[in-house]
């Protein structure tokens, strides 16, 4: 009796598998297919031409009804399988059809991912996956209007181009800085964005959707995180796919991200195979067609007991948008052991980049002219050694055999011994040699290694020219600085993605954002720790090992490894009792230096680490808490004596200062935050060079911000004037929270404010009560978790042992 093969799903992958099976052995199996869609097998890759009107559904059918008849296949359309009984070896569909099998193939494909934005269930929110979606889009587009496509990946862009061709206005929203960042490097992503803009499609990158707007159950538009609103008749979500494995899971097959298959494409049940977008093979899930076909071929062989294995695929992508030629294949990330060859022809809109490792192509990105794509891809798959044709490789297959070009012919005329940096006496040859030997790619590294341009900086332009000459097109002086060597993302990108992706721990950030090191470095770890503390105050557990030593031990390390301790003196006001307690501590612990600080408090310097907890304990008994003089957080609120004593004072500046300090102490900020409150415009508290300052006037309180009196000297900007102390507190807190949410780690408030614009700060804090209230509330919430005195916490025993050195007894005895 012929064996029975049941296939769940009628997509391209099982289609190819059956073709292979029938080619080899037409009669080996009696085949039954269950398809949840009411259709025969069609070519999903060609949905985009259908959407754009360049093809019809009939054009893209792979297997018509007659194919199934010819091969004796029973096809159940609109029959979704809801149960697999592995013991009885049967499957049952929603509409009551049961079939038994000897071998089963699960090809349930994938589901489009829907971002759970408010309003995602409104009528008019579509995905882009099957013909139903396309038909709905075409129906809507007949009446014009605007479509918003969320997702600037392959599918999203194809959908956008299709909708445009159907006559709609189209906006593409993309979360990342450049389009198709998984397949394209930033340069090609930029060209692509430009091409889409030229087609009349609006492209917004780094666009964070917040809410889908609707009326009467229908979509009317979308609002972004930054408040931008875009009207829209339909919203197409094309943000990715999720392997569809619920059915496999329900019958207890092993699933992870997808249905887990071994190299022979069997699931955890040897009689059940799986392939396509629903599977996970060696940890990979594929969404492109080539791997799916390869899997189909392997299963066809294994069904016939020919032992075949699938070893994973390298993939190539082509964007199917008329007028835009784009091809990408393999791996094109930068790495130390890789080299690249780049060809740019700006006038003709051509960009080609090959990534080589050990003289083999491992990645290719072609834009504008893609005819050599398959040739490169072929060599990539075959791991062809390209050293022979390397000089002309980038010009493509047709060029091979021509005379090799001399790419260095244009190297500038300066001799190697020409001095570039006068301060440090560095010549051109030394810079070139160091760049090449150390693989340097940015100015900071060149400065660190050669000292060129590291002093006065007037030769920076020259150094950059040498870099451009040495590095060729791979040198991009305008690149946004990456956070550190562990990632290519900037601080801004990381902050945005932490919120957008809901990342709540350092390992999660490093995993999701593809950190290049296993546990970061001393630059990124403290930054990430701050971002997580600021963004998820309730949920995130502070990671002390990612804090700089001062914040880890709540004191300031000095050049000899001892520490300084500064207790809080609220608003700079103290008393005999406090002073006596400090004097006692100084005597008891033999503290060598006592100094009054610029922030109106007292600093005890030269304390040994092992004495810290005992010092804090004594200070704590006198009522002191940590002054957080070590923190990237609220430091001091400097005040003058105001109306209590001063004959010019207009308000109780001391009282307001103390009130602000008691409200805000313990809060973490991107960099240190120092405040000042002056009781009159004579400004004895020097509030106009503080991070945030208040000048009291008769009519109320003038709030200032963004001053500096350190590396830079800068007077404050005026935020605005408010009438009451309560308002002053609210506005100041809201401003601090805005900075907490937006500032980059170690970026002082004056730099942040300059970056985003002083007017923007005023608009949000002074003119937008709703925004202000939001900031204020989030600060208050965060304080619930932040206002814990770290000194008393450590004195009461938390990690106390870390302050004590380990002593080796044997050593003492030996001496």
């Amino acid at each position, binding site marked *: 009796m012929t064996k029975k093969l049941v296939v769940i799903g009628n997509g391209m992958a099982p289609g190819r598998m059956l073709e292979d099976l029938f080619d080899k052995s037409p009669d080996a199996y009696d085949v039954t297919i269950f398809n949840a869609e009411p259709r025969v097998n069609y070519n999903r890759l060609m949905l985009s031409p259908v959407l754009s009107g360049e093809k019809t559904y009939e054009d893209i059918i792979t297997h018509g009804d007659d194919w199934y008849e010819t091969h004796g296949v029973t096809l159940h359309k609109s029959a979704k399988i809801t149960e697999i009984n592995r013991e009885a070896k049967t499957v049952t569909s929603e509409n009551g059809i049961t079939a038994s099998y000897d071998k089963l193939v699960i090809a349930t494909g994938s589901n489009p991912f829907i971002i759970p934005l408010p309003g995602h269930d409104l009528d008019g929110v579509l995905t882009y996956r099957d013909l139903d979606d396309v038909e709905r889009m075409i129906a809507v587009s007949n009446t014009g209007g605007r479509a918003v496509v969320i997702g600037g990946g392959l599918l999203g862009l194809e959908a956008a181009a299709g909708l445009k061709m159907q006559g709609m206005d189209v906006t593409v929203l993309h979360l990342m800085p450049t389009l198709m960042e998984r397949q394209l490097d930033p340069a090609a992503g930029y060209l692509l964005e430009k091409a889409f803009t030229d087609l009349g499609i609006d492209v917004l990158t780094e666009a964070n959707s917040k809410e889908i707007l609707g009326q009467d159950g229908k979509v009317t538009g979308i609002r972004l995180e930054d408040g931008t609103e875009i009207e829209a008749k339909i919203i197409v979500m094309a943000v990715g796919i999720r392997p569809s494995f619920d059915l496999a899971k329900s019958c207890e097959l092993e699933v992870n991200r997808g249905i887990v298959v071994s190299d022979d494409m069997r699931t955890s049940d040897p009689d059940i195979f799986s392939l396509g977008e629903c599977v996970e093979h060696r940890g990979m899930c594929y969404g492109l067609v080539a791997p799916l076909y390869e899997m189909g071929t392997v299963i066809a062989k294994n069904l016939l007991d020919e032992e075949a294995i699938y070893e994973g695929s390298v993939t190539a992508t082509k964007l199917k948008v008329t007028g835009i030629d784009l091809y990408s294949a393999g791996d094109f990330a930068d790495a130390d052991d890789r080299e690249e060859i780049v060809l740019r022809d700006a006038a003709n809109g051509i960009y080609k980049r090959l990534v080589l490792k050990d003289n083999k192509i491992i990645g290719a990105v072609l834009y504008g002219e893609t005819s050599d794509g398959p040739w490169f891809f072929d060599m990539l798959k075959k791991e062809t050694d390209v050293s022979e044709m390397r000089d002309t490789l980038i010009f493509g297959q047709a060029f091979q055999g021509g005379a090799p070009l001399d790419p260095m012919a244009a190297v500038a005329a300066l001799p190697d011994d020409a001095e570039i940096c006068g301060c440090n006496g560095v010549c051109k040859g030394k810079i070139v040699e160091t760049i090449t030997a150390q693989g340097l790619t940015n100015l900071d590294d060149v400065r660190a290694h050669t000292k060129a341009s590291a002093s006065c900086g007037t030769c920076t332009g020259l150094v950059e020219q040498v870099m451009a000459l040495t590095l060729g097109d791979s040198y991009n002086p305008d690149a946004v600085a990456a956070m550190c060597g562990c990632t290519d993302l900037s601080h801004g990108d990381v902050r945005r993605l932490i919120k957008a992706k809901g990342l709540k721990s350092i390992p999660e950030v490093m995993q999701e954002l593809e950190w290049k090191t296993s546990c*970061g470095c001393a630059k990124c770890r403290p930054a990430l720790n701050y971002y997580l503390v600021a963004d998820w105050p309730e949920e995130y557990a502070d990671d002390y090992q990612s804090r700089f030593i001062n914040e880890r031990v709540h004191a300031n390390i000095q050049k000899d490894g001892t520490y300084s301790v500064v207790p809080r003196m609220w608003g700079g006001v103290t008393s005999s009792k406090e002073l006596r307690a400090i004097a006692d501590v100084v005597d008891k612990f033999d503290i060598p230096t006592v100094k009054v600080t610029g922030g109106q408090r007292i600093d005890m310097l030269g304390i040994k680490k092992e004495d810290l907890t005992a010092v804090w304990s004594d200070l704590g008994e006198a009522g002191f808490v940590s002054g957080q003089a070590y923190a990237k957080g609220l430091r001091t609120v400097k005040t003058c004596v105001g109306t209590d004593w001063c004959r010019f004072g207009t308000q109780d500046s001391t009282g307001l200062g103390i009130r602000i300090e008691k409200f805000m102490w313990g809060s973490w900020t991107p960099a240190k935050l120092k405040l000042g409150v002056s009781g009159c415009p004579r400004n004895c508290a020097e509030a106009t060079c503080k991070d945030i300052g208040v000048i009291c006037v008769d009519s109320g309180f003038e709030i200032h911000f963004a001053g500096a009196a350190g590396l830079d000297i800068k007077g404050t900007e005026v935020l605005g004037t408010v009438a009451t102390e309560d308002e002053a507190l609210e506005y100041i807190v809201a401003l601090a929270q805005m900075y907490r949410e937006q500032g980059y780690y170690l970026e002082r408030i004056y730099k942040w404010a300059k970056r985003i614009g002083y007017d923007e700060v005023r608009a949000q804090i002074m003119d937008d009560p709703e925004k202000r209230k939001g900031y204020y509330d989030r600060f208050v919430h965060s304080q619930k978790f932040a206002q814990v005195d770290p000194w008393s916490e450590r004195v009461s025993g938390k990690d106390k042992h870390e302050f004590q050195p380990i002593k*080796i007894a044997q050593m003492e005895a030996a001496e």
Partner: protein
Amino acid sequence: MNAQTQNWVDLCELTAIPQRGARCVEAGENKIAVFRTADDNIFALEDKCPHKDGPLSQGIVHDGCVTCPLHNWVISLETGQAQGADEGEVQTYPIRIENGNVQIDIAKIMG
């Protein structure tokens, strides 16, 4: 005592050193920084940065390196070599984990 002699002594349990952290060990006049990495490897270095004598035991530990708290020199825990553009070296000491206890060979320190 010659260089071949070994003299392993217990310091503490591994768990007494925080992951991605360090403890300072006083061995007579010498200060030694004992590090525990994220993957539970341990290393011992002289607690003294080659740059300006900063206490390395107080630095941030990342992968196989520590960043000095004074001026951000990065030192390899394995070799004691300064990383990147900086040049310098710190003394390393033999250290091991036995039954969950961290042990250091004090022969080298005394030698």
